[in-house]
């Protein structure tokens, strides 16, 4: 026989022989099976559905579950009304471990051991009412009898313990535990609880007197010596204060579990009333979660004062303002990339990063304070102090690249007993602002220097390029261009370059460099004009010839031999005069003006050739006779202005 078949056989025997059946007549029974045979069955009246109990009538669930070498068995029986338990119910659970051992003859013997748990009581509309009994022991227990190793009795009302309860645990005869207590109608611990147990070999009687769900007074009696809990006085003061509506403390409305009680009382409450009596667990096939709600406890609540709410709002506002500035700063500027260029910048960035981290923490703390449970903590002590200590961490700031520099952020003295949480955080948040302002100013200054440095470098590069271009342009210059190269490039531009190189201030350098660039650009743009000036006489004569040509007749409209005297005058008097003006230009501004004047006059001289009104002829005759170049220029320009 394989293990599988052996186990299957045993389970089938357990289910079929262990549970009475056939007692419930006129009902339906649904049988469930698994790989080991019959897993369980439900006997019911009416319709059986997965998520809800049948509507009414008797109900019986028998089940078993296998986990490893443990067999769990369940039996739940009672009556139903309106799909809810109503009337007397019994709930049983068993945890069985089993082993096959050699028997007295050829057959093996089956050894089992385990615990049998029974809850028995009455339901009304699905909620526990009246006396409920719980018993646990091996192999089988009966809650109606007093000989069970573990017994718990409790008066229930609407599903909660609302009256006396008693726990008797004699499973270890050398260290029995007996608890007697009471809860009010809401299930809140009340009256005086008496706990008897042994500790360190001594018998202890602990009495806890509850006031409004708070363990207000605790006494311990060991070997005839009674002692009181050290906090009793403080608790009394708090309880008295809590009854004053104007006080900063009150009895909270939240319910808390056994962890509220310290010491053995908390452990026993958790173990007997929460883990055993209050939490029957069963197979998933029983669709109702029936809870026998154990006692609950109250705590002092320290609600936020109006001042604290205001402080919190101001703290959040201040932190958000700082964060928005810092986030924008880190996003807009390449601080991480640039910080290595300057120790001051490095330290400022490290400082601002620390402030940003702190402000994020402040925001988290302020956000956490909106949790309803936050007010159950005495926020001037305990966790609050730890929060403040966390804020102080990282107060010492060092640069990432220049670590020798250290800067400290403001801290809060958390050891001070009168430190108020929100005030401390607010003060710390506000204290960061001057440091941020200083850092921002430092960063602005450093970046401005970087920018200036970059601008000047770019300017110098442009000047160098422009100078090279100018040199190559005028390298083989002749005529007027050669004169300009010597007079302005070798002279003025070189002097200006020297002056620029010796400039100290940023503004002066920027101005000098910009002017230098402009001047070089001007000389470059003027270059084609020098050839025009050199060839002015020739150009004028060719222009006269070209423009005089009439394509319709093939002849010149202007007879050059008529104009020859005028042209000669222009070439010998007016143009040399204008050329001299160009050569004697003291600065670039004058050079541009005189060049422009020369070229404009040359163009006007061409246009003049085609003007044939009487006034034009008269002016031409005057110009032919004029020997004063300045006067000649004035007469000509005045005349052409009107034409």
């Amino acid at each position: 026989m394989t293990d599988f078949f052996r186990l299957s056989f045993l389970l089938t025997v357990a289910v079929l022989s262990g549970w009475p059946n056939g007692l419930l007549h006129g009902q339906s029974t649904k049988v469930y099976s698994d790989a080991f045979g019959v897993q369980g069955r439900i006997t019911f009246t009416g319709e059986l559905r997965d998520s809800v109990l049948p509507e009414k009538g008797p109900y019986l669930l028998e089940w078993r579950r296998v986990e490893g070498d443990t067999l769990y068995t369940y039996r739940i029986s009672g009556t139903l009304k309106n799909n809810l338990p109503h009337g007397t119910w019994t709930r049983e659970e068993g945890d069985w471990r089993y082993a096959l051992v050699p028997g007295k003859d050829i057959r093996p013997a089956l050894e089992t051991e385990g615990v049998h748990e029974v809850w028995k009581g009455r339901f009304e509309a699905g909620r526990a009412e009246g006396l409920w009994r719980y018993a646990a022991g091996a192999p089988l227990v009966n809650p109606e009898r007093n000989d069970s190793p573990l017994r718990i009795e409790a008066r229930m009302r609407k599903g909660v313990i609302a009256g006396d309860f008693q726990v008797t645990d004699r499973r270890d005869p050398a260290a029995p535990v007996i608890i007697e207590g009471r809860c009010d109608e809401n299930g809140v611990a009340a009256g005086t609880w008496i706990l008897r147990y042994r500790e360190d070999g001594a018998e202890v009687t602990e009495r806890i007197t509850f006031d409004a769900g708070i363990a207000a007074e605790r006494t311990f009696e060991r070997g005839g010596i009674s002692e009181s809990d050290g906090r009793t006085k403080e608790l009394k003061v708090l309880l008295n204060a809590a009854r004053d509506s104007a006080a900063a403390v009150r009895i909270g409305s939240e319910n808390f579990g056994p962890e509220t009680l310290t010491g053995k009382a908390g452990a026993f409450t958790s173990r007997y009333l929460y883990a055993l009596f209050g939490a029957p667990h069963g197979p998933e096939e029983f669709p109702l979660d029936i809870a026998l709600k154990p006692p609950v406890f109250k705590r002092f609540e320290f609600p936020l004062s109006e001042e604290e709410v205001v402080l919190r709002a101001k703290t959040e506002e201040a932190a958000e303002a700082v964060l928005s500035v810092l986030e924008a700063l880190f996003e807009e500027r390449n601080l991480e990339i640039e910080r290595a260029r300057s120790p001051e910048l490095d330290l400022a960035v490290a400082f601002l990063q620390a402030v940003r981290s702190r402000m994020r923490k402040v925001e988290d703390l302020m956000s956490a304070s909106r949790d309803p449970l936050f007010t159950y903590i005495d926020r001037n002590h305990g966790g609050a102090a730890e929060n403040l200590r966390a804020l102080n961490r990282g107060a010492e700031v060092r640069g990432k690249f220049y670590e020798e520099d250290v800067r400290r952020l403001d801290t809060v003295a958390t050891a001070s007993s009168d430190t108020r949480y929100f005030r401390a955080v607010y003060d710390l948040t506000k204290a960061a602002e001057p440091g941020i302002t200083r850092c921002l100013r430092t960063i602005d200054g450093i970046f401005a220097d970087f920018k200036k440095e970059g601008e000047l470098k770019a300017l110098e590069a442009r000047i160098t390029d422009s100078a090279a271009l100018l040199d190559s342009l005028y390298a083989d210059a002749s005529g007027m261009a050669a004169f300009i190269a010597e007079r302005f490039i070798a002279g003025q531009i070189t002097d200006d370059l020297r002056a620029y190189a010796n400039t100290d201030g940023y503004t002066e350098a920027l101005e000098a460099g910009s002017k230098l660039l402009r001047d070089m650009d001007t000389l470059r743009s003027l270059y084609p004009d020098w050839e025009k000036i050199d060839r002015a006489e020739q150009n004028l004569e060719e222009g006269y010839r070209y423009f005089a040509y009439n394509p319709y007749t093939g002849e010149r409209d202007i007879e050059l031999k008529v104009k020859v005297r005028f042209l000669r005058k222009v070439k010998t008097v007016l143009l040399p005069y204008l050329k001299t003006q160009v050569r004697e230009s003291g600065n670039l501004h004058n050079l541009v003006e005189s060049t422009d004047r020369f070229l404009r006059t040359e163009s006007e001289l061409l246009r003049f050739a085609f003007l044939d009104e009487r006034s034009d002829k008269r002016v031409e005759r005057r110009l032919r006779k004029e020997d004063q170049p300045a006067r000649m220029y004035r007469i000509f320009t005045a005349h052409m202005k009107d034409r």
Partner: protein
Amino acid sequence: MEIPLRCTALIALAFALFSFPERADAQQYTDKTGWWLIYFGDNKLNDKFGLHTEAQLRNHFAENQVETSLFRLGLNMYTSKSTIATVGYGYFYNEPNDTELPFAITREHRIWQQFLTRHKSRQLFTEHRYRLEQRFIEFGDGQPSLTDHRMRYRFQVIFPFYTLSPYLRHYFLAGYNEVMLNLRSNSAEIYDRNRLYVALGYQVSPKLNFQLGYMNQAARQPGLASLEINHLLQATVSYNMDDLMRTFFRPADRPENPDR
């Protein structure tokens, strides 16, 4: 013979207004596009005579058009400084480049007589051209040959820009309108076509100029109830191996020179 500028402009305006008699009859018009490439030449042999040469290629390679090759030769008689009488011969070859077109290949021998008068002012150069044509048309589709007579009148204006600026002296604006009337007894067949033309020209020298312009031709086509409207791009080169332009322009445009 010179006429005032305002008088010339008035003639041109009136001619343009009355040169489309059929359009007032709400006939249907069809539009076509094409291009003409033209060469003109007037070559003086002596003071009295000269040769007129002309070649035109019309609508070659244009879509859905009748391609025309045209050659003219004439004898110019210089009757005065500003008038020329010409008699000549012309040969025309027309071939539709699309079989869908309702035209057959035609060949035409043409004898023509022409009288041309030129006038100029300081700003404008105007020209009146009167022409008579005797047309001998052979149809390629076997239809009997046709003899036809036509008279044409063209009024042309040239506006040289050299009076505006010496820099624009080579450029001119040219425009003309020409109406052609058949000499027939049936009044419905008298109108043949009208050409309105405007162009920008470049005068290289007295002998050579180029023109690029637009011509709008409204022609009555045999067998078609409506006029055919042609929008034509026209490129013209004129090469005159004589001193026609030179002698024509010289006297008036030469400025009076007080120093002479």
